[in-house]
């Protein structure tokens, strides 16, 4: 049996095909999210990669911001529920999930059975999200994937105090004009995201094992800063960016069995 989960986010579209609810058969990611042809592309790519056709799929669940407008799905489910399912599938010891997406951040506390015990989301502000890192990387004229390399080489991270992305941008420009070391500046930016996310996480309550999902989990500068802020190890879950789609595929499997 094949089930497909599609996570249509603000900046990316992800698909996962699950075989018999147990094995990941294929995954795809397109860097175009809701309101674009990204979801359709991700869908086509995952089918191609799995060597399957639409007819082979038993059930499709959509999640993420674009879930309501994606007509090819059999059902929709909230991204928090899907992330919980996906991360628990990958790491059953996980009790706290920190997910930093393109436009929001969420913290989910799990019970022993993988059910959601509590959760919090950030408000409608780009601070502490992937978008914040995108803006900063753009300002520093480097790809967002390079931020990690700089952050981990920092000796004395600078302090970015503004909560607002726009004000933080001014602060970074001011630091640049003072010729501060690039590594220290990037580490300051990563610390700033970590500090806002840690505040959110503390509201939900931290229980180990703490796992991080979402695209930002791949930035170990943020990951290690978050670990320091929370004073617990934070581990990157495998295929961090696909947890919503994986959870949706699991939910699809649960619908048909």
């Amino acid at each position, binding site marked *: 049996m094949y089930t497909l989960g599609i996570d249509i986010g603000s900046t990316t579209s992800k698909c996962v095909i699950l075989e018999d609810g147990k094995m990941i058969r294929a995954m795809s990611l397109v860097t175009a999210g809701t309101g674009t042809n990204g979801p359709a592309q991700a869908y086509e790519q995952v089918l191609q990669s799995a060597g399957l056709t639409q007819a082979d799929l038993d059930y499709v669940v959509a999640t993420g*911001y674009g879930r309501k407008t994606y007509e090819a799905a059999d059902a929709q489910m909230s991204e928090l529920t899907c992330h919980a399912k996906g991360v628990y599938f990958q790491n059953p010891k996980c009790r706290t999930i920190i997910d930093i997406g393109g436009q929001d951040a969420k913290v989910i506390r799990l019970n022993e059975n993988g059910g959601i*015990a*509590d959760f919090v989301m950030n408000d409608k502000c780009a601070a502490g999200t992937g978008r914040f890192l995108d803006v900063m990387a753009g300002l520093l004229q480097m790809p967002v994937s390079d931020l990690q390399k700089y952050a981990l080489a920092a000796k004395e991270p600078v302090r970015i105090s503004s909560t607002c992305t726009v004000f933080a941008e001014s602060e970074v420009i001011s630091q640049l004009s003072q010729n501060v070391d690039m590594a220290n500046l990037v580490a300051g930016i990563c610390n700033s995201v970590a500090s806002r996310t840690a505040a959110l996480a503390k509201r939900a309550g931290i229980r180990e094992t703490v796992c991080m999902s979402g695209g930002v989990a791949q930035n170990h500068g943020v990951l290690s800063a978050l670990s320091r802020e929370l004073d617990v190890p934070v581990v990157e879950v495998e295929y961090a960016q696909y947890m919503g789609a994986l959870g949706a595929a699991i939910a699809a499997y649960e619908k048909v069995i």
Partner: protein
Amino acid sequence: MNTAELFEQFHKIALNPRAQKDAYLKDGEKVVLVTYYVPEQLIHAMGAIPFHTYGGDLPVNEAKQYFPAFICSVMQTMLELGMRGTFEGCSAIVIPSLCDSLKCIGQNWKYAVPSIPFIPLTYPQNRKPDYGAAFTRAGYERMVRELEAATGLQLDETRLKESIRIYNEHNALMREFSALCAEYPQVTATQRSDVYKSAGFMKKEEHAQLLRELIACMKQEVAQKSSGKRIYISGILADAPEWNRILEDYGLQVVGDDILACSRLYRDDCRMPEDGEDAMDALVRLYCDKDHCSLLYDEKKSRVEFIVQEAKQRKADGVILALTKFCDPEEFDNPMIKDACAEAGLPCVVIEMDRQMQNYEQARTIMETFADMIG
């Protein structure tokens, strides 16, 4: 009228308070705008109609010149409505000093809406002791003097007892309706909200009459099967149409509330004054004896346990804390309520509300997740 027709009647009034206000004015009535914890019985006994205003779901443009962005949207939209002329014809507005935001609306109102006199109502921090009651009474007397000047009406002492009786009767009906909603899952979040909202836009005796009919009709119906997702809501207000639709979309049944603009207003009755007893004193005691409210000083925070007990008594599966953005009194209480719910095994979620919300996608995601969590 049958149940559906009665709910439709409440819906029309809840949706268009301006038409209701204009109709009263056309009939030659005096309308006085009020917000939370104004002693409406005094206004009623003067022969005027107390008319609720908690702002509205609209973008703030004009009022921005008086307030920073990070302040309570209830107050901002109240001023916005005033500046747009929505309240024209009203005799006055009475605003109590119950939170820091409300305290600073008066100075702006006087300049921004000069056509509608602003009447402040200053309440004491310590309301329980005798000096607190004396302070409250002095505030009521001042409010009456200013209202008499604004409306040309006089407080009729003999009518005050009758007004107290009418308000008590209405309170009892509102409580009965709330209890019925817990038993009848077919009552939608919108319908429940409409009944509470319309109560502020009608003469209490008129609203009571409609509500009496509705309760009688509801009791003749068979309760439908519950969705199994019974929720209790706390907060200042949660009446946006889109918010109610979200609750309905995820099968969340509102079985009780601690919303200030809903049940909190109708919890306590005024003790009927004895013959020869001063009726205003009874009203003063009604306010001074109030408890379980974020806006009323309470060092023991009895409200926290009250909410847990109410939610349990109504057999709620979860508690929603509808947090009005930038509302300090509610923000102070919420962590305590959340902890108490966790201790009682009640799933609890906090969701920020704002009068200016245009996009409810995040609220939808949170509620969808919460419904999954408790379902």
